[in-house]
């Protein structure tokens, strides 16, 4: 595993240090141990948060009835809508353009079949992987497209009533294996031929940070 902190911006580490002082998981005579574990967990969470709030993730974790696109997270062109199942509306599903796999609602080839050729660099259309929006319960921005705080996102991600009933190990598996998560590190090129930006950590670093956060008991910042 490569050195994690080497790739983390100083600003992020400063915010991690301030967050580590406030956790919601202090309990009884295990206070010292818990504090240590929570501090490490909060550091790891902040690294996870730095990825979750990158446009590659945020553009489909919206609070509105449409996806976003681009580094500036503008509303998706062509009046593309969320639809009843998060994969568009009849005649204009995500899979209508994001090819390689059909929409979540309709099934289709498995991810491995399409993964290697999902992005079409000739046109700049990213694709494949059963493209769909995250559910509204997993919105990481508000209806004005303003980013939610670290504590708000953490609470949502760890709330089993909102996160498809995933515990820590399931969250880790999701971050490690889900095709749409992996897409964030293979986003291909924009229509103008330039490369889309990547999240601030590598996928391996992201998974490792998630693992440390899960092992610490998925602590969340208080504010």
């Amino acid at each position: 595993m490569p050195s994690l902190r080497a790739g983390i911006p100083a600003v992020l580490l400063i915010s991690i240090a301030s967050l580590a002082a406030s956790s919601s998981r202090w309990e009884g005579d295990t206070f010292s141990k818990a504090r240590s574990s929570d501090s490490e967990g909060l550091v790891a969470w902040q690294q996870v948060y730095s990825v979750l709030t990158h446009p590659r993730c945020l553009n489909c974790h919206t609070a509105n009835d449409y996806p976003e696109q681009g580094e500036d997270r503008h509303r998706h062109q062509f009046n593309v809508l969320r639809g009843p199942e998060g994969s568009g509306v009849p005649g204009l599903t995500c899979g209508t353009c994001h090819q390689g796999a059909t929409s979540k609602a309709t099934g289709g080839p498995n991810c491995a079949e399409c993964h290697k050729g999902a992005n079409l660099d000739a046109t700049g259309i990213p694709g494949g992987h059963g493209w769909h929006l995250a559910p509204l319960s997993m919105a990481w921005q508000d209806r004005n497209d303003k980013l939610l705080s670290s504590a708000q996102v953490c609470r949502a991600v760890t709330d089993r009533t909102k996160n498809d009933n995933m515990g820590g190990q399931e969250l880790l598996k999701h971050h490690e294996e889900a095709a749409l998560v992996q897409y964030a590190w293979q986003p291909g090129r924009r229509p103008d031929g330039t490369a889309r930006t990547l999240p601030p950590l590598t996928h391996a670093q992201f998974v490792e940070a998630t693992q440390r956060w899960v092992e610490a008991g998925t602590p969340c910042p208080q504010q």
Partner: protein
Amino acid sequence: METYQLTVNGQQKEVTADPTTPLLWVLREELKMTGTKYGCGIAACGACTVHVGGQAARSCVLPVSLVNGRPIVTIEAMADDPVGRVVQKAWVDKDVVQCGYCQSGQIMSAVALLKSTRKPTDKNIEESMGGNLCRCGTYVRIRQAIKAAAQQIG
């Protein structure tokens, strides 16, 4: 170059193409099925819409290597499709077409909508047809034709 076995309008077709070749080029250049139109080439206008695996798809951005055995249906098959036939008749009855260039894509999207939503509301039509552009501005007649077709389908 690779060889692909495609099912197009119920018929087996073998084509040899570069894996990144968009399906639209295979249809038009290799199979000489020119009913599907090239508009923008970046999935922005909908003129190239076909059905792949029963869903509307922009053939200009679908590499032939990713069809993966899913059946392809194009505008050429609409006259033999129970919903497509009704939609085409409604298109004629409402005199929808002006220049006509976008209309094969419009019809393919309309058929995909009606196969999923038998009684579409104005909102359904706006949402589902929003990705199909018509520079002649036939949108009002397109909506009328879809509603007429829906009524006919019952």
